[in-house]
């Protein structure tokens, strides 16, 4: 294998992982980026989605079909979570960001333990025909267990983008971020719109979970390692930009892949946060622009 081959492989795996990060970060791009709800429980919800797929897979259902089946229940779960959140905070007046952070922090722990109690803390994996195979293009090998979840990223993001752009309810969600009053004047209930958006965000968790469980086995605590990454992506993507999420995620994937290959894999967990901190320190105005 030549140096160039290795570089190409590094780039390809960066793109693959980036697409996967994008689908994991997508829900947060909606809750945090659009609704300004710092849902740090999203990665835990993603893992929960992964467990849903594992259980369905045990019954012989293909992970991708299981993901499709999970969308409705997770959508409903998200609406329920939003209702709880809104009842706890927004009704008391302005929702304090810091309190909701704490709430979601507690929620993520409860989800993790809930999974431990139900399924144990052992690793869980799925089986599917495309796991274990790989496509070869010359010296570049793309394993199926990475390719399939990596395709989920652009597909989901594309669908969501169309939804936000071309449907009334999608437009309403984007509008709620900017001007709640205008929405009520238009005869829409902002709370209902937000609830739907939160449901949608949570529904993407099951797709993110599918992506993760296809790459490799998951355990209940796997979400913790994603928190830094997903926030870095959402913030860097410019708060709520759906296509931006994909672009930034792929850039991050490549950065991690480069560090892991050419520096030392042991440094890679710090990459996302280092980039995030650097961005916060150097370009705060760019991030501030989209805040309320």
């Amino acid at each position, binding site marked *: 294998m030549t140096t160039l081959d290795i570089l190409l492989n590094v780039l390809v795996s960066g793109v693959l992982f980036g697409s996967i990060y994008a689908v994991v970060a997508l829900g947060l791009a909606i809750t945090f980026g659009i609704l300004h709800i710092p849902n740090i429980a999203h990665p835990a919800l993603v893992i929960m989605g992964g467990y849903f797929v594992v259980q369905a897979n045990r019954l012989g259902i293909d992970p991708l079909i299981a993901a499709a089946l999970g969308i409705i229940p997770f959508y409903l779960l998200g609406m329920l979570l939003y209702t709880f959140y809104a009842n706890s905070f927004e009704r008391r007046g302005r929702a304090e960001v*810091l309190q909701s952070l*704490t709430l979601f922090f507690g929620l993520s722990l409860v989800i993790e*333990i809930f999974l431990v109690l139900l399924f144990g803390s052992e690793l869980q994996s799925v089986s599917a025909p495309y796991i274990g195979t790989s496509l070869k293009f010359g010296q570049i090998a793309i394993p199926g267990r990475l390719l399939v979840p990596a395709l989920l990223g652009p597909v989901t993001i594309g669908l969501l983008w169309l939804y936000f752009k071309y449907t009334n309810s999608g437009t309403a969600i984007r509008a709620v971020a900017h001007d709640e009053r205008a929405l009520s004047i238009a005869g829409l209930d902002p709370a209902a719109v937000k609830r739907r958006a939160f449901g949608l965000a949570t529904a993407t968790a099951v797709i993110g979970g599918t992506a993760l469980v296809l790459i490799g086995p998951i355990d209940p605590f796997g979400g913790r390692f994603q928190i830094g990454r997903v926030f870095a992506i959402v*913030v860097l993507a410019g708060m709520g930009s759906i296509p931006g999420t994909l672009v930034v995620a792929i850039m991050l994937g490549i950065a991690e892949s480069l560090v892991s290959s050419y520096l030392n894999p042991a440094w890679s967990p*710090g990459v996302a946060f280092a980039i995030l*901190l650097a961005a*916060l*320190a150097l370009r*705060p105005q760019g991030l501030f622009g989209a805040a309320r």
Partner: protein
Amino acid sequence: MTRDSKIFLIAAVAVLLAGLLAPHVLKNPFYFFAGYVILQYVVIATGWNILGGYAGYINFGAAGFFGAGAYASAFLFNTFGIPLLGGLVAACLIGALLGVLMGYLTLRIQGVYFAIATLGLVIILETIIHNIPALGGARGIVVYGPPPPAWAAGPSQYMFFLMLLIAVASVSLARWMQISWVGRGLRAVRASENAAECSGVPTLRLKLLACAASGAVLAAAGAPYPFYTSFVEPVTVFSLLIGLNAIAMPLIGGTRTWLGPVIGALLMASTQQIATITISSELNILFVGIVLIAFVALAPNGILGLVARRSRETPR
């Protein structure tokens, strides 16, 4: 000095005296092992609350500061033979520096970014430790501290008293910050940053001061840890449970005053010390998580808030 301050001073001295006398009354060393952990959490909760409670900035990375303190004292002792006291000072400095750094990078923007950045602090520090062989990497460092001084009844009693000193010092600092211009300024910033700034409060500097004090106290809680366990490794000192407890204890006790975190820590840490030998770590975390959610959603001002409300509602 106000009457309250006099009472506080007398109480602090009484607590320290009781700590000195305790080994002569309680002969069973177990109490001192368990007591050390409880006091360690009093310090952690107090340190967290300086920033989280007074200024309203949530720090998810308490374990990062704790771990930094633990590693600082372990490294200084093993490499240069610097005793724990020196390690404690160094830990405070490092904690303060880390706090200022985190604050400086994020506080100019919005509170939520500070919180997110602190989530990453632990991961970054852990990654750094893993990659520095002098700090033992993932294998950890064994620390054989000196034998306790002659006046102490034993190592556990000595470590307990040391942690008691740190706790009293931390709580005194937190109390002073709360009742002085610092606390008033921080509460003003929390209520309205603009109005505070226009009242002459140097908001950024004040927040950085709170970051530094909070970081120093959190790191101080970690400094004696290597001497307590004789061993430091990344997994335990950067444990999620530390970060979780640091938030949960003040929120449960009440974040507005210095007393809240103390009450929260005493309650929760004692429960957990008993639970250590009765329930599993998963149930332990579940318990803390649910209590946390319940308090945030239903009683945002903690136990002290509940007590205050009740006393206000009952006719005098």
